């Protein structure tokens, strides 16, 4: 972003990578897939790079409002400094926080989750799923992220993106507003689960596996980890893979 600013250029969008997209080895592949799609289409985008910092979501949900607001106010200063107007992110938690919680602290941007952004590119014909792997006849099930779905009512965009793959989209028993959480939200990801008789991600992975799909599509870095671990727990990792929707599109495009 700093380079673009110095060159006097203005990006179409700011891609907010998020901590998982920057540091988590598995989710870095999602970042890369999404960036490849953007490059292929020719979307002029920028990233903050080292100037990006955690939105503060896990701190806020864990109860640490001070830390959240320190992060939020600093991030807003950076974003406002670059006069950012439109933000796209592949993380529903970043999406929710920047979209819904930053305005009250002085950060007003158009914030779009990458599922909605990809849906737009597909609808405009800028992204065509061709030239890569064929998904015809394959069964894919989509796991709703709480912070995308219930929290922000984005249920159809990721499904429409998947529809572009021409695969067989099969739904789990609990979907959309009734979707079952992967177990990571509310900062659960960053601590052990409280005592119980089952892990939430195992419950959800079993439900996903019951659909008979060979691919579990997700749209959130934390769902990605939880669902992958759940599938491993059921010893199905050789048969069933967990992918982000942008990875599937990139695969379909041969990127």
């Amino acid at each position, binding site marked *: 972003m700093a380079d673009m600013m110095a060159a006097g250029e203005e990006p179409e969008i700011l891609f907010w990578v998020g901590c998982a997209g920057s540091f988590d080895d598995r989710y870095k592949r999602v970042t890369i897939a999404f960036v490849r799609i953007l490059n292929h289409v020719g979307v002029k985008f920028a990233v903050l790079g080292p100037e990006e910092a955690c939105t503060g979501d896990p701190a806020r949900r*864990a109860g640490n409002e001070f830390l959240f607001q320190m992060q939020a106010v600093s991030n807003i200063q950076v974003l406002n400094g670059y006069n950012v107007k439109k933000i796209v992110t592949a993380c529903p938690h970043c999406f929710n926080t920047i979209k819904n919680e930053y305005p009250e602290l002085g950060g007003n941007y158009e914030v779009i989750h990458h599922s909605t952004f990809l849906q737009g590119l597909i609808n405009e014909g800028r992204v065509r799923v061709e030239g890569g792997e064929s998904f015809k006849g394959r069964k894919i099930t989509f796991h709703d992220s709480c912070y995308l779905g219930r929290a922000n009512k984005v249920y159809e965009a990721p499904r429409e993106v998947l529809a572009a793959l021409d695969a067989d989209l099969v739904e789990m028993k609990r979907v959309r507003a009734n979707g079952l959480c992967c177990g990571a939200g509310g900062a659960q990801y960053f601590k052990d689960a409280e005592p119980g008789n089952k892990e939430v991600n195992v419950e959800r992975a079993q439900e996903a596996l019951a659909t008979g799909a060979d691919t579990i599509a997700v749209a959130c870095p934390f769902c990605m980890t939880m669902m992958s671990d759940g599938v491993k727990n059921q010893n199905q990792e050789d048969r069933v893979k967990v992918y982000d929707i942008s990875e599937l599109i990139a695969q379909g495009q041969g990127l």
Partner: protein
Amino acid sequence: MAYLEQILFVVAVAVTGWFVTKRVKLISRAIRLGRAEDRSANAAERLKIMLLVAFGQKKMFDNLLVGVMHFIIYAGFIIINVEILEIIMDGILGTHRLFAPYIAPVYPFLINFFEILAFGVLAVCVVFLTRRWVTKVSRLNADRHRELKQWPVKDATYILVAEIVLMFLFLSWNASDSVLRDRGIGHYGELQGIVPDFVISQFLKPMFTGLSDTALVGYERASWWLHILGIMAFAVYVTYSKHLHIALGFPNVYFSDLKPKGEMANMPEVTKEVQLMLGLTPEQTAEADPSGGNDNGEQPESIGRFGAKDVEDLRWINLMNAYSCTECGRCTAACPANITGKKLSPRKIMMDTRDRLEDIQQGWVKNGPDYKDEKSLLGDYITVEEINACTTCQACVVACPININPLDIILQLRRYKVMEESQAPGSWNAMFSNIENNMAPWKFSPSDRFNWAEQVNETK
């Protein structure tokens, strides 16, 4: 004799009114313990939500069969109340079916309609008792949910049985009255030709044809009295019961949270400090915080606790939520933590909040209006293990048929635990310090944040 009945009736109404008023005052004082928050804006939108969700019971129809059954009880309750108006007027004036001569053409139609509803209510109550005690629907089963043990299951059963008894009294009263009318006895006979047999109670008439005139009049009077006294007792009982939702459900839905579900309420008192720490000027503060936390009168004069330890730290809407909860357990049935055996139950969060308020009320009644005990919601009622099990997935919030928000309470309790007591699980503290020092919840160097870019142009 007639005058005696009238006097007794007026006394009964007055006593009921006195008890209900006393309870309403106590409950509204308890709700006002909560922190102020202005939820009056967007009246049109609120009205629409209330019409759809409260009057229309939109969310109840997520399960169509249960939705229809609940609607029958609800419609029965509201519409049969029109007949209660006549019963009360008769009671006060010592008349019998006061309205019948005046609205003779539609009177039979109205009573038939009430009778069909009464029969519907009775039938649905039987089904609901069956669901509780025979088929044992999971979310209503006290063996599976510790918060339902003892009083809550009794409360539910009492209400259903009371409804069945009341409806039977109403129907059998009509039946005995019809037999008296046929026999042309006293003022009952005066309505011969004006009031016909009714659609349901005509089938109950054989129960009474064998009785003597005196016994029949006795039953007619007894059932009339028991029915209306039952309703008065019910009105008082409801204020102690989970069934308070029949009244509070409406304002509760009207004052629903209109923000996107994912948005957590801001703490303006923290914003001010954070902005000062970051060296932002007050002008920027005012601009940066358009809601103007300090100017709109939403904030208390002195800053209380950060987060909530007890009910007075919560917002008033959280407390109204607690009084509106019917303990149906749709929230708990949808909760991923509860499904996987954790201690957390969103329904218990609401019930604990109400129990806390009820205990405070009892303290006022016993020890004077300024009494405050040593207990607190977090610790004595809700444990840290429960609130720490929440994934903030919003399933409970979405599931509630009357838009109660247990998550909002959980998050305020967490804020207290972390900000006032600095008590968080060790791994959360590690996450906090990572964010503070590395700008990410993990221990990575901020300068490595852009490293992924090197791989973008690599071939797979």
